[in-house]
């Protein structure tokens, strides 16, 4: 019995084992558990010694190897072995050990950014972040013999881009990148073509401003500067054969170092704050110069960048083109560009701006509607803000401005050109703000008037708004629901009101919003910011910037746009 029992137990065990095996037999066991298989930068370089062994050695010498193998977000421009060998040959050395360790440290820093930048973020200009060395790198695409390559810092081609590793991005390059040695001032001085310009820089003291390295510059805002240099031939063509001629024409105080002297201002007008490569200049409409409150406006036509190409008081003033080939010269503290023609600082007197808000490029193109058809046109942001000069807050409801014209409608009949822009304003469903780009306004002090046709969407509607010019709030509020009070011109003006239309109807009125000191001769941003109330029928017609000493009440406007002068 015992024997059988044992046998039974054995069989039982066997069957139990079989069951266990059966239960597990269907599963597969994965034996490798890792959070990621991505290697970090140093390990990646180790994996490809045939390409990167020399640079890997440099990382060991400079002590960067371990920190580039730790987690982080970096972009490394890794020179290949051929690149390092060429670099060594240039230095007259045969191995990386012979190079001064500080030189190597600087070199590594110049190839490294603490940001992850893929090649699709490359532009024609600088990378969005500084290198650890403290200079910007620039990129471009260059076509040689029909083959286009991405070039870094005008020195190296990208051999392989966008190698993703655990702690960032590696771009392999075929030459070592060398940081700029000279300051902007030295770059200009070293080129004999700029002798007059150099002398003027020195005489005005701006040479020193352009000669400070970023690390030594106490002024945070002027660590990087951009110079727009005029060569001797450009100055000659403008009638200045020598520095003496320039000084004789411009130096008004006798001391070119005086910041109010015209020669000083002229030179300061050629210096832009920040490191601005052509791509940066082309991308923004105006550049802040060292001449106080004077800006350079920029326009891109075709591939040409024009400075100060503007239409003022209906007259086109052709701009000065930048010489692309002679520009984008990197310096240790900025960039140097070359101008193809002379630019001057223009002194302009403040001049009145009657800005018909219902006249902007997009509506002008719609000739069958513009000042002609009672069909209204509404815009919403679905097309990615279809209007070039007007933006507004995106709300859940799709809302934007509406253009409305009619010579018969009581809402528009007496408006300037019988057209208005209807702005739905007020949260939560309507935009809380609208922003308009103004026409060119000359530097100076102005009173700001807003002309509108008052209307209430329902009897209890209110709509109170604060207006701002370039972020500076105007003192009085704009209420689209409030009609103009009655009274004589002088009486109204004293209350901050006026009749701006020829028609005397109290529905039409202009409100004085306050006095604004326009700082730069340029276009500005006019913002209407809702404070309380919400309605659709805010009928904006006209915004006026009138110099404070000019007549504020006249001329008035007929619906056909003709002026009514002071009787």
């Amino acid at each position, binding site marked *: 019995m015992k024997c059988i029992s044992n046998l039974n137990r054995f069989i039982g065990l066997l069957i139990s084992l079989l069951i266990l095996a059966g239960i597990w037999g269907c599963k597969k066991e994965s034996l490798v558990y890792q959070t990621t298989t991505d290697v970090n930068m140093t390990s990646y370089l180790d994996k490809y010694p045939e390409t990167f062994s020399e640079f890997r050695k440099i990382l060991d010498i400079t002590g960067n190897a371990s920190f580039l193998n730790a987690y982080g977000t970096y972009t490394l421009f890794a020179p290949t072995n051929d690149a390092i060998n060429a670099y060594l040959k240039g230095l007259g050395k045969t191995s990386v050990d012979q190079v001064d360790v500080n030189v190597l440290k600087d070199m590594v820093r110049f190839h490294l950014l603490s940001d992850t930048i893929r090649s699709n973020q490359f532009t024609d200009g600088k990378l969005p972040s500084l290198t650890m060395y403290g200079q910007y790198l620039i990129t471009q695409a260059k076509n040689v013999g029909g083959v*286009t390559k991405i070039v870094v810092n005008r020195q190296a081609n990208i051999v392989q881009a966008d190698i993703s590793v655990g702690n960032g991005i590696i771009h392999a390059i075929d030459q070592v990148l060398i940081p700029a040695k000279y300051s902007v001032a030295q770059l200009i001085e070293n080129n004999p073509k700029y002798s007059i310009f150099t002398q003027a820089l020195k005489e005005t003291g701006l040479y020193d401003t352009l000669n400070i390295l970023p690390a030594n510059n106490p002024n945070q805002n002027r660590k990087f500067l951009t110079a727009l240099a005029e060569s001797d031939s450009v100055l000659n063509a403008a009638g200045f054969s020598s520095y003496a001629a320039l000084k004789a024409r411009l130096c008004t105080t006798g001391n070119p170092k005086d910041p109010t002297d015209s020669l000083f201002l002229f030179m300061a007008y050629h210096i832009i704050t920040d490191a601005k490569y052509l791509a940066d200049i082309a991308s923004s409409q105006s550049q802040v110069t060292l001449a106080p409150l004077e800006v350079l406006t920029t326009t891109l036509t075709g591939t040409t960048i024009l400075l100060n190409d503007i239409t003022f008081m209906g007259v086109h003033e052709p701009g000065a083109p930048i010489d692309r080939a002679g520009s984008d010269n990197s310096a240790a503290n900025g960039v140097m560009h070359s101008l193809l023609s002379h630019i001057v600082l223009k002194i302009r007197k403040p001049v009145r701006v009657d800005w018909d808000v219902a006249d902007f490029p997009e509506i002008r193109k719609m000739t069958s509607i513009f000042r002609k058809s009672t069909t209204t046109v509404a815009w919403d942001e679905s097309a990615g803000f279809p209007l070039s000069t007007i933006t507004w807050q995106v709300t859940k409801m799709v809302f934007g401005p509406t253009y409305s014209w009619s010579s018969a409608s009581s809402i528009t009949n007496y408006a300037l050109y019988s057209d208005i822009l209807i702005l739905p304003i007020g949260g939560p469903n309507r935009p809380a703000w609208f922003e308009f780009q103004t026409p060119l306004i000359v530097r100076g002090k102005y009173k700001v008037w807003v002309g509108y046709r008052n209307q209430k969407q329902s009897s209890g509607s209110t709509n109170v708004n604060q207006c701002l010019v370039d972020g500076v709030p105007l003192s009085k509020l704009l209420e689209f629901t409030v009609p103009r009070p009655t009274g004589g011109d002088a009486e109204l003006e004293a209350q901050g009101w006026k009749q701006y239309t020829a028609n005397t109807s109290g529905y039409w009125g202009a409100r004085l919003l306050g006095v604004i000191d326009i700082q730069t001769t340029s276009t500005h941003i006019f913002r209407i910011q809702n404070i309380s109330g919400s309605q659709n029928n805010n009928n904006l017609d006209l915004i006026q910037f009138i110099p404070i000493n000019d007549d504020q009440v006249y001329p008035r406007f007929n619906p056909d746009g003709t002026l009514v002068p002071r009787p």
Partner: protein
Amino acid sequence: MIQKAKYLILLLFAVMLTTSCNKWLELKPQDGIIRQNFWKTKEDVKAVVVGIYSSMLGNLSQTLFTWGEIRGDMVTSTLKTSTDQLNIMNDNITSSNSVTSWANVYQIINYCNTVIAFAPQVLNTDKTFTQTALNGYLAEAYGIRALMYFYLMRTFGEVPLQLTATSSDASIKMLPKSSQTDVYNQIVSDLTFAENNAVLTYNDNNQDKGRITKYTVNAIQADVYLWMEKYTDCITACDKVINSGKFGLIEGKRDDGSFNTQWFNTVFYTGNSNESIFEFQFDNQKTNPFYSFLINSSTNQFVGSSFVMDEFYTVDPIDDKNKDIRADLGSIRASDGLIWKYAGASNSDPKAVRNSTSSYAHWFVYRYADILLMKAEALACTSQGQAALDLVKVIRNRANALQATEKAPDPTSAVDVCDYIMDERAREFAFEGKRWFDILRNAKRNNYAHLQYLLDIITKIAPPALQQSMVSKYSDVRSHYLPINLYELQTDSKLIQNPFYQ
């Protein structure tokens, strides 16, 4: 006994467990039809051929729009444009970009290959199926396959030629790329078969415009020959369509100066007009993918660029009634750039926009106007400039093209006449997925003699910060073709990436 029963149960349990991993394989699916049971009657063949067309109603038109328009100058991005799409527009193209996926085109090619492989065997099982009928169906498959390869060739340059049906796992093959010449030769031979065997009419207007007829084949031939710079062949193909007398332009502006108010409705809103040669037949049961892609204002990814109204159509500043019928509320809504050709439900009311259930504007592959302008281009390239300009005039008069867009190129200069034809094509076929291919064809003619044409357009559309880089990249002609998608490279080891993207 109990002990025994216990073991028995345990044993049974064990046996069941250990064998449970095997399944008795039922080879035939219980809820579907397999190939061996299909392909028996002529109805089966027809069903599959119709299936090819319905497979083209998926996202193909969105792919063709993207490939044909977004690198050109007639569309611009919106807030909803994807990063991948923006990267194509800014020429920052990598193989991981989803726009470079050709999967849905090859899917259609595979349906064609399936018909070509299996339809002939039906002759053995269905005695009422004639050789002529078979050839008619095969012509449709060959015609569509050629059209698909033509799109691939223009987009990617060199592509793998898959000419056999992938009907089982065993028939999956790794294919290398074929040269452009090989792809071209295949397209031409497919089209030759299709031309010889396609029917002239299906005796139903909608089918004539929605299925491959002999005239569709001629239209594709004309386009292919034009691309390969075989101008006499192109003219011959165009003439076959023109001389058939079955097509004509729907009148727009009449001789008495009045406008045909039904023009937009006939040609674009309803579709299948007398002017149409081949269209994708969307209807209220199968809407096109454009509602969320191009129409709905909270999701649309592209709108017409500012150049469309400013440069291509322009407006008459004095007489607003004098307008190009293809302009505002023809192709585009001028106020915001909405692509009216697919979005509009009226040519007079700017608020009449299609909704999601009525978004069934057809995709216009070929219209008669295309035949005339292709012929004009071929004429211009064979020293018959004046004849070419006469044809352009026909198109311009029909649409009342404005004076401001009229040019008087020297008839003896092929380049000038072709540039003028390109402008007219942009006006006539705005947003029909042709602009980029037109730009490329015009630039690459005579071994890229006119590359500057393309570079000028890039200069115009490039964002300022990328302008110089984009011009340099486009100066490298290898960049004009898209890279092969990363997924394809990983799954087909014989594929080699296009050189610009290596």
